[in-house]
């Protein structure tokens, strides 16, 4: 590649990244997920303690009475209630906040409260219950069903969060919506009046829309969104081909120096997180695990040493490279790489704008994810069920993310070794080309 074509391609990537990165709703979505991540990780940590360590049928059952373990588990259960089971509400609030900040809207508390209120307005506060052995089912009222506030309702949280916040900001900046009070009245009082009408109009609109939906289509908001948005999109993005495609495009962006989160943060992560939450809940309830592909699955098998499983590239350089500068950079990149931070090697070597290294950088995750997918599908390793921090070092991350399955760590090790040989031929060509250029 000569310099002008390089620049041309880089500009095109930068243009797309700028558009996607600056799109205010997608940005707010990404920011919101960053805000709720600690709660996901807390839930993951709780899942590990409760269902690996405190499991009555597990190894602790021999040391402590199983009933005592069950009692202790209730701490973790309450944490799950406050994280996983209300994830949709957390998402809605976080999105509202970040959309306000990104729009430069100052009075953030008003739209946040509107969103929270609206979430409950569109949620049916009843659930059906049938006692064991009975064919009759009863409708229980005055409850907030967790099936609406947990992972499965997440897109309602996203959509209500975005719509209600935007609507509120529009309404409250409309002068006609503000009450004019003359006289010597403190600004705080005027402010409270100025949000009054927008709040009322906003919540009423959602209540009426939800009512009409119910009357005309006999459907609630949640069912509508899950039928027309969540299910079809999730089918595309978290099927193996769709998932590999989006991940590869994201890594290709990284190959041109643009962080992969521009692509995956908006197009993939919401779906991966939803799958993650589904899995954590199913694991906690001893149900069949529904998804192979999820957030921690990607981090565990495709972000070892950072994007592109670059830990393998470091190993390839340590063992096989003849270039001193490559070895020096790899030494420097080792510590960040152990925590899956790959920027030093990506920009330092560099991989960016270097076609010979971009190719394996994109291929390596396709290989590892495909292997891990089928290994999970045929039962060679347990499903990934625990959200781990993405900075958890490889080998350890496999063990933790699968709820303590050492075979996942072995698989990670095998993938790392094989990936060394995916990088190796490209590294050799790269070194030969650069040696020729230096002559």
């Amino acid at each position, binding site marked *: 590649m000569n310099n002008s074509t390089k620049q041309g391609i880089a500009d095109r990537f930068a243009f797309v990244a700028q558009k996607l990165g600056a799109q205010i709703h997608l940005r707010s979505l990404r920011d919101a997920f960053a805000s709720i991540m600690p709660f996901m990780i807390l839930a993951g940590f709780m899942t590990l303690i409760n269902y690996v360590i405190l499991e009555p049928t597990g190894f602790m059952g021999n040391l402590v009475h199983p009933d005592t373990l069950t009692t202790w588990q209730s701490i973790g259960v309450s944490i799950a209630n406050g994280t996983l089971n209300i994830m949709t509400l957390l998402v809605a609030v976080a999105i509202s906040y970040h959309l306000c900040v990104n729009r430069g809207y100052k009075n953030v508390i008003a739209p946040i409260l509107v969103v929270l209120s609206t979430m409950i307005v569109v949620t049916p506060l009843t659930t059906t219950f049938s006692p064991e052995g009975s064919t009759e089912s009863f409708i229980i009222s005055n409850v907030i069903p967790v099936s609406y506030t947990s992972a499965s309702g997440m897109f309602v949280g996203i959509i209500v969060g975005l719509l209600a916040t935007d609507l509120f900001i529009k309404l409250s900046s409309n002068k006609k919506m503000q009450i004019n009070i003359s006289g010597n009245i403190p600004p705080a009082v005027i402010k409270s009046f100025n949000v009054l009408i927008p709040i009322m109009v906003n919540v009423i609109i959602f209540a009426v829309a939800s009512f009409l939906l119910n009357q005309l289509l006999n459907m609630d908001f949640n069912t509508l969104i899950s039928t027309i948005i969540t299910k079809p999109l999730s089918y595309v993005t978290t099927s193996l081909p769709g998932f590999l495609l989006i991940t590869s495009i994201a890594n290709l962006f990284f190959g041109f120096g643009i962080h992969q989160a521009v692509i995956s943060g908006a197009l993939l992560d919401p779906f991966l997180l939803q799958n993650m939450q589904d899995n954590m809940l199913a694991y906690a309830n001893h149900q069949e695990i529904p998804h192979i592909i999820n957030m921690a699955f990607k981090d565990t098998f495709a972000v070892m040493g950072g994007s592109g499983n670059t830990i393998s590239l470091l190993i390839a350089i340590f063992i096989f490279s003849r270039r001193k500068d490559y070895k020096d950079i790899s030494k420097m990149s080792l510590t960040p790489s152990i925590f899956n931070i790959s*920027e030093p090697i990506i920009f*330092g070597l560099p991989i960016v704008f270097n076609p010979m290294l971009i190719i394996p950088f994109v291929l390596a995750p396709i290989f590892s994810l495909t292997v891990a997918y089928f290994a999970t599908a045929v039962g060679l390793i347990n499903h990934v069920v625990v959200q781990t921090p993405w900075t958890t070092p490889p080998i350890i991350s496999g063990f933790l993310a699968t709820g303590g399955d050492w075979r996942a760590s072995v698989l990670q090790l095998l993938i790392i070794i094989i990936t060394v040989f995916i990088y190796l031929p490209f590294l050799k060509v790269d070194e030969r080309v650069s040696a020729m250029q230096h002559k």
Partner: protein
Amino acid sequence: MKNILLVCNQGMSTSFLVEKMKQAAKEKSTEVNIWAVSDAELHENWENADIVLLGPQVGYLKSNTEKVVGNSIPVTVIDFVDYGRVNGAAVLKTALEMIEE
């Protein structure tokens, strides 16, 4: 006291650079305050900064960032080789020069 804000996707990889920049500043006995945040936290942080340095991987946010800071302080993208090689001294030098201008 100069305040230098580094921004990247999650404030993780730039934090390695921050450490190296602090070291370089110490060696030259320059008084600086350097910290790293994610691009989502830019809004809460830029007002305390004299310059915003973007990691090259979020270089696409430059025009957006300039809009946020309203051209009150310089915004620049860190050279990607300096960034990858965690060349704290070079990045610090560029930043201080840009603040002076």
